[in-house]
């Protein structure tokens, strides 16, 4: 009998994408960085011809989510993936076309703002990509290739100067030096905080493994710190550090004060300790006792048992702790801009203060990007250490 099957997930995602394109503004034309722009839907911005470049692949995907044809599901998913890639590739192209149609060379302050339809489409298309990645069981390598391909298309339009009028690009061009510096500071602060917490938490874990009494003292303390909101902890560090700095020339000479990098660093490390210490301690303790027994029984020395058996087996969970810590530190460093630590948070808070949304984006998007990259980096590292994953991937 003829039965109409439907892939609910792709159907919902694609329908929502199409609706957002119809109902919401795709781009807006802003005369300068402060004044609000006039919104354009996708059709009114580039005309039907170009709009179809995105609408058609989406319609095709909608069609493919009904499975009345005899094509295998793998084929259908592959087609849908191809359509999604097309949507991703055409998005920067449409922006470039909009710019050439609506902004002349002489309007040096005019800029293209990204409308809500653009963001919603980006979000939903990414969700569809995640969904298809799971259905097609794409390997990490293929995903990386896709990301590079999509990034490359954006880079192409950026380098050929077709995206120059894009609001965030204008904003970046106006303060590229500050941006690069802020990006570096942000990265340094995060790296320094994570590195020092790795060292500190290793020491703490060693202490706790030696003397179990410390477990009862250290965990509640770290939990307590983790509960205190970041803004409060930053605020509370200002007065004591300011007092210390006022009374010590040495501290002043290395730039320690109530505001600046010092309180930021202390707070970042304090927050990082809990996930790191907890994961490391638990991971090392929960290695299967019979494995340790066998290792000892075969004549491994305590050091060999630790380095060859306990540590490698605990490694995925330890890395997970470092991953959580790093992502957390990337976000907290942004907040630390409030107490003068610098970094990308500066753009967010200055942008909010001046009601300049493009500047907020210039701060927030790279922070998101940094967090996603850290996540990708650590999950790749974790999969290298986890033998179970290795074998299950091979068997697939």
């Amino acid at each position, binding site marked *: 009998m003829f039965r109409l099957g439907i892939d*609910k997930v792709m159907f919902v995602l694609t329908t929502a994408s199409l609706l957002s394109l119809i109902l919401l503004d795709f781009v807006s034309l802003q005369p300068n960085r402060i004044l609000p722009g006039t919104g354009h839907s996708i059709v009114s911005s580039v005309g039907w011809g170009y709009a179809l470049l995105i609408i058609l692949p989406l319609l095709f995907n909608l069609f493919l989510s009904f499975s009345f044809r005899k094509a295998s599901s793998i084929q259908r998913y592959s087609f849908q993936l191809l359509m999604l890639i097309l949507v991703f590739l055409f998005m920067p192209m449409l922006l470039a076309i909009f710019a050439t149609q609506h902004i002349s060379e002489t309007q040096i302050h005019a800029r293209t703002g990204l409308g809500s339809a653009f963001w919603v489409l980006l979000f939903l298309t990414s969700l569809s990509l995640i969904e298809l990645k799971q259905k097609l069981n794409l390997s990490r390598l293929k995903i990386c290739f896709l990301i590079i391909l999509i990034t490359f298309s954006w880079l192409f339009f950026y380098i050929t100067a077709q995206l120059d009028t894009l609001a965030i690009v204008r904003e970046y061009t106006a303060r590229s030096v500050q941006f690069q510096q802020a990006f570096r500071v942000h990265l340094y602060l995060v790296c320094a905080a994570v590195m020092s917490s790795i060292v500190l938490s290793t020491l703490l874990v060693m202490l706790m493994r030696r003397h179990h009494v410390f477990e009862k003292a250290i965990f509640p303390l770290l939990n307590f710190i983790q509960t205190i*909101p970041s803004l409060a902890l930053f*605020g509370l560090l200002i007065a004591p550090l300011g007092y210390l700095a006022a009374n010590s020339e040495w501290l002043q000479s290395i730039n320690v004060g109530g505001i600046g990098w010092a309180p930021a660093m202390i707070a970042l490390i304090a927050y990082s300790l809990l996930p790191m210490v907890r994961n490391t301690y638990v991971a090392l303790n929960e290695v299967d006792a019979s494995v340790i027994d066998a290792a000892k029984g075969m004549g491994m020395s305590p050091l060999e048992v630790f380095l060859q058996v306990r540590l490698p087996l605990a490694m995925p969970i330890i890395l997970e702790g470092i991953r959580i810590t790093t992502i957390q530190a990337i976000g907290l460093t942004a907040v630390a801009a409030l107490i003068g630590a610098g970094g990308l948070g500066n753009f967010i808070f200055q*942008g*909010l203060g001046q009601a300049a949304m493009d500047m907020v984006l210039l701060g927030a998007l790279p922070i998101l990007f940094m*967090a996603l990259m850290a996540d990708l980096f650590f999950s790749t590292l974790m999969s290298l250490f986890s033998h179970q994953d290795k074998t299950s991937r091979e068997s697939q």
Partner: protein
Amino acid sequence: MFWLTCLLVATFGFVHLEELFAQISPTQRQVIYSRDSFLALLLNHIYLVSIAAIISICVGVISAIFVTRSYGKEFLPLVSQVASMGQTFPPIAVLALSVPLLGFGTLPTILALTLYGLLPIVRNTLAGIQGVNPAVLESAKGMGMSSIQVLWRVELPLSSTVILSGIRTSITINIATAAIGSTIGASTLGDPVISGLVNGNTAYVIQGAILIGLLALTTDSFLERLQQKLIVKHSLM
């Protein structure tokens, strides 16, 4: 209870400690934050977080239940992926991104808090429901319970501790994020801190920071107690 007492004492007591704060910021003319009363800020902070929490709990738990039923299970892989990946986004970035889309004020703050607060709740509810021993479900069905009865009498009670710990995480993060919400125009306990930082008035910063810290600790200890009670109840069953 200890933290609650401290919180109340601080809320009403800071006004009487003018001399103490004057020593911290000797150069400032005014040392007690006075644009709003601390009580009003505290209540508004709690209001924002509670509204967001109520919405996230309802939406989060319901959607997690939806994707674990037979009619919604197609959405399960996507939802669980998004719930775990979404936590990669720093809350401050989510807060900042809500402004270009929704503008300044209380509403975007509530929305950002709700969205971000959803993730741990969805994630934990999924983990809780999926973690219920299949043998228990099997025997519940075998005794003739309807699927609604299985959900209400077996799945939700058994996963309640895990769900509650998700709610606890969600609220802890949201109290912190709501404080930063001052920068996008919501009136919260973050106001004194931000205004103190802008004007170099350390006394304001300390007042705000102490209140935020105490609010977080009070809420957390309250939720912890609730969790303990649930655990005790379960071990009796």
